[in-house]
């Protein structure tokens, strides 16, 4: 059942990749979209069939693959991975349609996007540590090529940097996994058979640190983040949506799945350090974003900041905060995709991303009014304005983390104020002001270009108004995760019983 999510995109990629040369770009894109939509429909069906009460893996599949080395093809989803799978399939379709102009070598391009989707789905569903590493490494190849072939001016530099960093990340994770299995004496790499309680605390600490560094590159955390601005800025908007929307989530997902879940006792030891790292990332990202002159780079740095919240929440390890971490992954994926799509449209139409050149795009006749309006909405969502999905996630994160790390949480709240600062700078410079008459001959934004943004906006608003849908699939799983952590913090939002008489 779950294999469909891996093999459907791969079959699609093969068909698109080996399609006859006579097929036009539109036809190839439609073909890729059919494969991606079928995957999305399948994940939505899984969503409807998912047992909301259970906190274990569901729809499991097991095939012995290479038993001597402990590798098996075992898949399963729980409340942690299923929402991310939905996000991944959704953003793949969005990315397919956010290209906007003719792509050179379309067969390779669409095939690679589908392959990337398949590999990410595989990594999210893997229940075997080696299988996870396999998919985690496989996904690098399509992304490396997608950045390196269809990127901007410095694409070679950016793609090599991305490849080197993430390959090191994969190696570290593999090393940690090998250590975990060898030290625990587990017969295979299957998640279900692995028990780390036999490992001495010192070894656990070392393993967890190696794992943390590996995933920290992917998330990325300061100071291992320097591949991110280059990769995000040089990649085309569609690829950036996939990079920021889904790929970065593998890092935080892995940290919760293989860090928090496998080392519940040791997690408490490194949690304060993690919270400091996360807060440093949050502040660093926000301050760096303020200083940027390039709007795409600004959004890229904002992403570093927002991924930091996830780490703080995961470190706090309360029921609310871990749920908030997952909510923040989803909300950040949606909002970042929307932002990058809109910035991509602006770049295409206005021909520049320079804050000092752009001006007055809100102009209803000659500017890009709808794009700017949605950009304002996306900025508000990212800054955590209530009624949009960003608020829900940030609120859960802050509320959940405050009892454990008050100072870190307060610094994060201040940084979320700084988010408002750089978005006001961005919106003020690009959307408002007077349109420069010499430059304002922008091509029309077509409906097909706007459609992905409208879909994302609708979801951002809907989940902001109906936050329950963001978390209902995950709550039993995250609560189950937190229950394994020895020390538990209060999970209630606030005790209002004392004020009931008022």
């Amino acid at each position: 059942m779950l294999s469909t999510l891996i093999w459907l995109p791969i079959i699609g990629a093969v068909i698109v990749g080996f399609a006859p040369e006579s097929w036009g770009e539109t036809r190839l894109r439609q073909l890729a979209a059919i494969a991606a939509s079928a995957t999305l429909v399948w994940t939505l069906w899984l969503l409807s069939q998912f047992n909301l009460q259970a906190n274990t893996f569901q729809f499991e599949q097991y095939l012995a693959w290479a038993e001597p080395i402990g590798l098996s093809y075992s898949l399963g989803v729980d409340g942690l991975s299923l929402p991310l799978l939905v996000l991944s399939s959704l953003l793949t379709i969005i990315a397919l349609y956010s290209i906007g102009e003719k792509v050179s070598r379309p067969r390779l391009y669409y095939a690679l996007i589908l392959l990337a989707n398949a590999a990410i789905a595989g990594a999210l569903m893997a229940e075997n540590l080696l299988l996870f590493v396999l998919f985690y490494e496989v996904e690098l190849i399509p992304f490396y090529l997608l950045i390196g072939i269809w990127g901007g001016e410095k694409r070679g530099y950016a793609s090599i940097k991305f490849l080197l960093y993430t390959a090191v990340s994969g190696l570290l994770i593999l090393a940690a996994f090998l250590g975990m299995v060898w030290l625990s004496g587990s017969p295979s790499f299957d998640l279900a058979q692995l028990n780390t309680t036999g490992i001495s605390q010192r070894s656990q600490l070392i393993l967890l640190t190696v794992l943390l560094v590996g995933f920290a590159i992917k998330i990325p955390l300061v100071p291992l983040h320097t591949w991110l601005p280059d990769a995000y800025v040089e990649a085309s908007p569609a690829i950036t949506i996939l990079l920021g929307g889904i790929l970065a989530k593998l890092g935080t997902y892995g940290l919760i799945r293989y860090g928090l879940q496998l080392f519940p006792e040791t997690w408490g030891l490194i949690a304060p350090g993690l919270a400091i790292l996360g807060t440093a990332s949050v502040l660093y990202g926000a301050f760096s974003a303020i200083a940027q002159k390039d709007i795409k780079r600004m959004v890229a740095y904002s992403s570093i900041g927002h991924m930091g919240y996830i780490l703080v929440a995961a470190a706090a390890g309360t029921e609310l905060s871990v749920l908030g971490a997952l909510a923040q992954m989803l909300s950040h994926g949606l909002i970042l995709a929307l932002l990058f799509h809109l910035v991509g449209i602006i770049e295409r139409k206005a021909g520049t991303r320079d804050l000092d050149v752009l001006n007055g795009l809100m102009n209803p006749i000659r500017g890009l009014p709808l794009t700017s309006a949605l950009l304002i909405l996306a900025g508000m969502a990212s800054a955590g304005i209530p009624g949009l999905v960003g608020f829900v996630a940030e609120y859960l994160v802050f509320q959940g983390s405050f009892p454990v790390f008050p100072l870190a949480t307060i610094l994060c709240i201040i940084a979320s104020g700084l988010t408002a600062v750089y978005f006001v700078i961005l919106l003020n410079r690009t959307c408002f002001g007077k349109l420069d008459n010499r430059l304002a001959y922008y091509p029309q934004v077509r409906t097909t270009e706007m459609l992905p943004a409208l879909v994302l906006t609708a979801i951002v608003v809907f989940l902001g108004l109906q936050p329950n849908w963001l978390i209902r699939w995950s709550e039993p799983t995250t609560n189950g995760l937190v229950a394994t952590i020895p020390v538990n913090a209060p999970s209630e939002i606030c005790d209002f019983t004392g004020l009931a008489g008022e």
Partner: protein
Amino acid sequence: MLIKLQPIIALSPVATAATIGIGAVTALGAAAIAMAQVDVKRSLSYSVSAYMGLVFIAVGTGQQQVALTLLFPYAIAMATLLMSVGAVISNNITQDLRQYGGLWSRRPISGLSYLVGAASLVAFPPLGCFWALVQLADNLWQSSPWLVEVVVAVNAMTALSTAREFCLIFGGEAKPMTARSPEVLWAMVLPMTVGAGLALHVPLLLWQWGLIPNFSQLNLGMALALISSTCLGWAVGAYVYLGDRVAKPVRFGPQFLQDLLAYDFYTAKLYRLTIVFVVGIVSQLIYWFDRFIVDGAINLVGLATVFGGQTLKYNVSGQTQFYVLSMMLGTALFLLVLCWPLVSQVFLG
């Protein structure tokens, strides 16, 4: 929100004192700033802040009901004022009070609406805010008399600033900007007149809801003090700003005080010099650090690798002597390292 939070604020003496302090400073400061603005909308918005300060005082002293009673007539009066001023601005473009004058004959509806709004904003019986202000001052008289002075002063200053705006806009001679100024479209006149009508009916509504105190319970002295402060404010405003008895721009007190009020206590500048400056500097520093230290170190490693490879390339010279020399050197170095304990004993003792 603040009024709903009153029970929580009342629990802490610090919070209560802070609420009252913030309220008093805001009320007095904003009322004073409102008198010194040349932009008519800025002036009105500072009057809004002054009244919010009064609400803070009411909440801080535990008078939620009075706070709510004050907010209702205040809101309608302020809406009428802003609508009337908005109607004027819409046809005359400028918001600068110095460019206005002589609109009374041209814009009677706007002028009348302005007067109604101005009268119901301050303590002027029987219009709306009078009742709330009297109750506020009466309650304060028992607990903290100095706050009564604040209320009376704010009332007088607000009366003065509304009178000033009225005289500058509607009184005096027409100026170039106001020479041609017909009433605006009905779509703006209608809400303006409805607002004025509502403001006139506010006392009836308050009476209906039982919010107007019995005449026997009314503190007549307090009422008289408030009414006379209103009249004083209007009289001074009219005297100074109607006609040319006082040279414009009006000078009072030392220049620095006037500038302080005209530039809103330099709040914007203060922000620019503190928070905005710090955030700007920090973000530039971090950006620099990110670009040259973090990213620089990574690029340095990359460059060093490439440079090392390029340099080693030149070792392959193809000359036998060169290879022999490098082998000899290598062997010597190797032997030196191996025999270091011996060598150090022999040569260094």
